[in-house]
């Protein structure tokens, strides 16, 4: 069990992690909040698109695809 903070886009597929902080401001941050991504939210990377970006994540029971520029700003800990 490590407590290291990593960006969500570096989390391996199928590993559940919980959100530590959002490294974004303004509209980008609001969009994350809309999805219910707040501190403590559990997120699991499910699968990659053919090119590896975007990646589909399970967030609060829904499957949401995020481009890596967005997921890179969500810091998580596994």
């Amino acid at each position, binding site marked *: 069990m490590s407590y290291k903070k990593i960006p969500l886009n570096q989390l391996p597929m199928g590993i559940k992690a919980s959100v530590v902080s959002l490294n974004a401001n303004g509209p980008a941050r609001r969009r994350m909040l809309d999805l*219910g991504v707040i501190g403590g939210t559990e997120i699991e990377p499910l699968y990659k*698109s*053919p090119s590896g970006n975007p990646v*589909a994540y399970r967030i609060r029971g829904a499957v*949401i695809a995020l481009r890596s520029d967005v997921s890179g700003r969500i810091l998580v800990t596994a």
Partner: protein
Amino acid sequence: METGSCNCVNPPRFYPKIYFYGGKNVGLTGESTGAGVLCSCCGVLQIDRITADDKVVALAGNPNVGKSTVFNSLTGMNQHTGNWPGKTVANAQGRYRHRDTNFVLVDIPGTYSLMANSEEEEIARDFICFGNPDAVVVVADATCLERNLNLVLQTMEISKRVVLCVNLLDEAKKKKIRIDLNALSEKLGIPVVGTSARSGKGLNRLMDAVTDLTREQSETSPMAVTYGEEIEQAISILEPALENTLGGRLNSRWVALKLLDGDESLLRSMRDYLGENVLSDEAVSDRLKEAKEFLEQAGITNDSFRDRVVTRIVELCETLGRETIVYEKKEYAERDRKIDHILTSKATGIPIMILMLLGIFWITIAGANVPSDLIADGLFWVQDRLTEFFVWISAPAWVTGLLVDGVYRTLAWVVSVMLPPMAIFFPLFTLLEDLGYLPRVAFNLDNFFRKAGAHGKQSLSMCMGFGCNACGVIGCRIIDSPRERLIAILTNNFVPCNGRFPTLIAVITMFFAAAVAGPFQSAVSAATLTAVIVFGVFMTMLISKLLSRTILKGIPSSFNLELPPYRRPQIGKVIVRSIFDRTLFVLRRAVVVAAPAGLVIWLLANIHVGGASLLAQCAGFLDPFARLLGMDGYILMAFILGFPANEIVVPIIIMSYMAVGALTDYQSLAQLHTLFVAHGWTWLTAVCVMLFSLLHWPCGTTVLTIQKETQSKKWTALGFAIPTVAGIVVCFLVANIARLLGLA
């Protein structure tokens, strides 16, 4: 699509009015749904209350929770449904009657929140806020209710007359999710009704709940969301002043919260709808300043204010979810995940997509042959009888020519060639759409769009373009970022619409399928058509990239794309519905566009000035240029005359050839092939016609729609010029390279 005239002259203040973008179904299969009038001058729709007692009900909800299905079931209307988020980007309204009361139901765009982060959210919020609905029904997805509760809580902050409709209960049951609706209703303090709208279950109870809520003028006492000491304190500083100014027109607590949040768009909307700026009231602006200073001292900045508000709501949803929802099976989406792995993996994702397209085209082309011939036989039999009739009543030759050879024949062509493929293609496409495949297409293609500096949801607006480019252009509203939305609008025309598909199919069948024998013909046609479409997609990406490197510079905006659970399509319903829709669509186009066009073309072809027909003279003038593009003057003329509607391009070509040629009748594509070859068509002509059909100016309706959507002559002109220039360049290159190489 047509536009109605504007009949909303100076809508009175406080009268329910909402932004209304089109009342059009922007999906693939349907064409019109809204009972409203498209208004280009002020962007406002008035609700058509027949009597003063009519109740207005707003239908809100997250994207893709079956809102449109609820809407259709209640109103008996045919708002487009499909399994992907964002299909309803326009408010549609319909009516229903329940227990002796008339209801006007307004379907507002699906949103995750009402915080006005996007245009859709603004539209939704404005209607709930300023449309004075007698009730707001929030439709929620039972399979992920917790997240949906977010919107429910936000709606409850604005309105006291909210009904929660927990839809898709049947799906939740399959996934072993149990929801205690009574407990939820008690906790939220609003009526909660469970439904399975697709099978109509629970809708009666929903209507009962809405009726009760609106009839007794009763208000619920919804659970209040509180935001912690500091924020509550700030609200209490500001709220009394606001209450004075607003005088009960809006919920003052909620407005206070939004003002503290610094929500500019709400201020704008209040100015538009209430006709006043609350901040011009000194008491309000002073109090706001005071409250903000208070927050600052408490260490709460703008961003952290929003964070606290959202976090509080999300936490509340979590608590509510924990208390009322039981997941009996942990990994309930296992099957969907397996399907997604196949449909989106590196090795199989894109090949399967292309195979799927190929398969659909193959079924379309193979299936359309027989009905096409049958319809053609029937319609041309009628033509002969018509001619006999005109001879019998001794009508002058020009009357027969005008009505039979001009109007009727063009109409017959459009119906027999357009109808069968479209009646097959659209149900198939709709099945894929219902299944939930389109968001996966967007997922697969996103990387290309990102590299082109465009938005991933552009795939979805392109899919809409298959039905009608005007619909596709409106559909670009699902893209929030103005820059990326413009890119999507300007390139939508690279997807062949309804009117161009059959042209492509006809040319392919005549010139390419004939090269092979028997059963493989349809397969070759399908492969050729797929290649044309893929080329169109390639051009879309190329031009998008060029645009985002030049006049629309910028970095791609962040966005998120929801991949909804797969749903079993309602096969029977989809097929019947979309065949019916398409048939009506094509028939209406035939009457509205093809018939008058036939008349004009016949006149052009038969009025002779200086020894040659007007058509021949124009064609002669265009001929040298058209030859450079691998076509001839008549073809280019046909594309120009086809500006009102692409459907009539091929009939114009036929009519002009027949007016100057020896052939007097045609009944099959084989005969047409002979006619075309007699006029010098080669495989290269066919290729250039297909390319030019794919890449040329948008039809009249689409141009008008671009103007309406962009509100700019410059972008409209570019929307016209970009595909045109692309078509000229591509055809010129293809024609001349082929000639240089001695291939044609």
